[in-house]
C-alpha cells in the first residue's frame, strides 16, 4: 500500500522552499498564476446563483424602469423647466450609474453570506488563489451591471431619450459604467469582509449608495444646491463619472471628467481592492 502522497502534475511542487523569503515569493507567483482561472470559476458559480435564483435580479431589472419613470414624469417637469435640455437625456446617465451601484453593492452581501454559511472555510482550505473568492463576486456583479446598462438604455430609448454625442462615445459609455461599477464593487467587497453579516452589508447599500448618488449631479444640476452641498457634490466621484457619461451620450467636454474618473477607479481597485483582499486573508 502506497501511503506517500501521490504527486500529480496539477499539484504544487511537493518540496516546499526552505527560506521564508522564497516561500513568500512562491506564494505571490502562485497567486498570480491561478488568479485568472480561479476567479473565472468563482464568477461562474456566482452567475449560476443568478440563473437558479432569477428573482434576485428583480431590483436590477425593475429599478431603472421605476427611477426613469419616477424622475422623468414626477420631477422632470420641475427640474427641466426653463432649461435648454430634455430632462430624460440629462437623467439617463445618472440612472445608469445609480442603479448599477445598487447592483454591485450585492457584492458585499454575497461575500458576507459566504462568510456566514461557512463556505469560506472550504475555500480557504483549498489551494486556490486567495483573491479569487472576492474577485469572483466582484466580477459576477460587474457582469450583471454591464448587461443592465444595455437594458436600461433600451428602456430609455423607448421613453424618448436620444444620443447626441456621436456613435463612438455612445459605444464607450457602457464600458465606462462597467469600469466604475467594477471599482465600486471592491468598496462593497471591503464592507462585506468587514461586517461579515449579510443584513448589515445589505443596509450599507442604503447608507453608502443613496447619499453618494443623490448628493451629486445624478438627478439635478449641482448649481441648484446650496453652496456647502455644492462643495461636496463637486468632489464626489459620482458627479465626475455621471458627467463623463452624460457628455459621452450628449456631447461635451470629456477630458477633465475622464481623468478624475480614472483616478477614482484606480484608487478603488488598487487601494480598496488590496485592503479587502488583505482583510479576507486575515480572517480566521
Amino acid at each position, binding site marked *: *500500500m*502506497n*501511503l*506517500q*502522497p*501521490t504527486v*500529480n502534475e*496539477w*499539484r*504544487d*511542487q*511537493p518540496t*516546499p522552499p526552505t527560506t*521564508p523569503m522564497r*516561500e513568500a515569493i*512562491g*506564494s505571490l507567483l*502562485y497567486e498570480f498564476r*491561478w488568479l485568472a*482561472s*480561479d476567479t473565472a*470559476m468563482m464568477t461562474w*458559480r456566482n452567475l*449560476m*446563483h443568478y440563473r*437558479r*435564483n432569477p428573482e434576485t435580479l428583480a431590483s436590477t431589472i425593475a429599478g431603472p424602469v421605476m427611477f426613469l419613470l419616477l424622475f422623468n414624469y414626477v420631477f422632470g417637469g420641475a427640474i427641466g423647466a426653463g432649461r435648454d435640455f430634455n430632462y430624460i437625456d440629462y437623467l439617463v446617465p445618472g440612472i445608469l450609474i445609480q442603479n448599477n451601484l445598487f447592483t454591485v453593492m450585492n457584492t458585499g452581501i454575497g461575500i458576507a453570506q459566504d462568510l456566514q*454559511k*461557512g*463556505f469560506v*472555510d*472550504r*475555500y*480557504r*482550505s*483549498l*489551494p*486556490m488563489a486567495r483573491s479569487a473568492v472576492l474577485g469572483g463576486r466582484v466580477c459576477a456583479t460587474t457582469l450583471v451591471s454591464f448587461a443592465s446598462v444595455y437594458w436600461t438604455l433600451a428602456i430609455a430609448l423607448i421613453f424618448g431619450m436620444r444620443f447626441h454625442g456621436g456613435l463612438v462615445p455612445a459605444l464607450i459609455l457602457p464600458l465606462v459604467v462597467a469600469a466604475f461599477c467594477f471599482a465600486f464593487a471592491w468598496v462593497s467587497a471591503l464592507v462585506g469582509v468587514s461586517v461579515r453579516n449579510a443584513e448589515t452589508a445589505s443596509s450599507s447599500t442604503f447608507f453608502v449608495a443613496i447619499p453618494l448618488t443623490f448628493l451629486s449631479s445624478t438627478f439635478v444640476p449641482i448649481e441648484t444646491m446650496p453652496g456647502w452641498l455644492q462643495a461636496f457634490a463637486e468632489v464626489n466621484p459620482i458627479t465626475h463619472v455621471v458627467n463623463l457619461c452624460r457628455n459621452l451620450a450628449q456631447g461635451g467636454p470629456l477630458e477633465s471628467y475622464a481623468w478624475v474618473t480614472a483616478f477614482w477607479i484606480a484608487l478603488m481597485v488598487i487601494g480598496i481592492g488590496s485592503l479587502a483582499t488583505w482583510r479576507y486573508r486575515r480572517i*480566521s
Partner: protein
Amino acid sequence: MDNAIQVHQISKSYGKVVALENVDLNVRRGSVMGLLGPNGAGKTTLVRILTTLLRPSSGSATVLGYDVVRHARHLRSYIGLAGQSAAVDDLLTGRENIHMAGRLYHMPKRQVQKRANELLEQFDLVDAADRSVKGYSGGMRRRLDLAASLVAEPPMIFLDEPTTGLDPRSRLELWDVIRTLVSEGTTVLLTTQYLEEADQLAHEITVIDLGKVIAQGTADELKHQAGSEFIEITVRDTEDTKRAASVLSNYAENNECDIDEENNKTSIMVKDGASIMVQVVRSLDTEDIPVANMAVRQPTLDDVFLAITGRTAEAAATESEQDGN
C-alpha cells in the same frame, strides 16, 4: 516518517480564553484518529489549525511533513476537509459542487469529470447528481460534502463531526463510506462527540476536554482505564427486582447496585466479570429468583469519560456552553 500528523505543544488562545493548551498528537499514516470530546472542548480549533485555517498561538504542527503555518499553501493540495456545516452550494447541483472543488484544486477538466462520476457512484448520488442541492436530505448533503473534499484524492482527510445531526441510518451509511476510505489507505482525523462513533471507526482515540488532551489510546486501552466491567441481570417479575439487587450488591466492587425498575434490570460494577457472574448465577438460583436475561458488559466510552473527568460527556458539554456565554 510514518506519522501523517505530528502536533507539538500547540496552544491557541483568543485574548484570555484558552481554546487549546499544549496539545501533543501523533497520527500514523493510514490510520484513523478519533478526536473525542464534548461541545466546546477545542476539537474544531485543532482541526482548523491543522487545515491551515487558523494559526496556532504557540507550538508547531506538521501534516504529511508540511508545516501548517510555513507550508500552508503546499499542504492545501494534499488535504481534504469536510466540516460540520456541510459547505456545499445550495444553488448548484451535486455534480457542479464536486466539479467546482476539483477545479479549485487545479485538476484538469477531464480528470475532474471522471472523478466526479466515480464519486457520485461511490456515494450513491447518481440519481440526484444533476438536481440542485437545495432539495437534498441532510444525509445526502454530508455525503456530497465528503465527496467534494475527496475529489483530489487527498492522502489525508479531516472530518469535523461528520455525522452530527444525522439520523441513525444516514450515520451508518457514512460510517461505511469512511471505512472504505480507510481501507484504501487514506489517513483520517475525525472529531466526534459520539463516543460510539469513535469506538466504531477510530484505531486510536484522543480525548480532549477544556482544550487539553486528557487521555490517549486505543478504544480498548481507554476502556481498560475505566477499569471495570458491568454485570447486568434482568429478572422476570418486577417484585423480584429488589431481592435480586440485594443479592447482587454483595458482589459489587463498591457495594452499590443500580436498579432500573422499569426494565426489571439491576447492574453492578465488578473487576472480573466472568468469574463473578458464575457466583451471581449460583446465588440467584439458591434464592429462587427467575432470570430473564444476564450479561457481562464492557465499559462504554461514556463510562470512560465519566471515569477520567468525573462527569458525563453531556454535563461537560453543558458546562462549556455556559462558559462560552
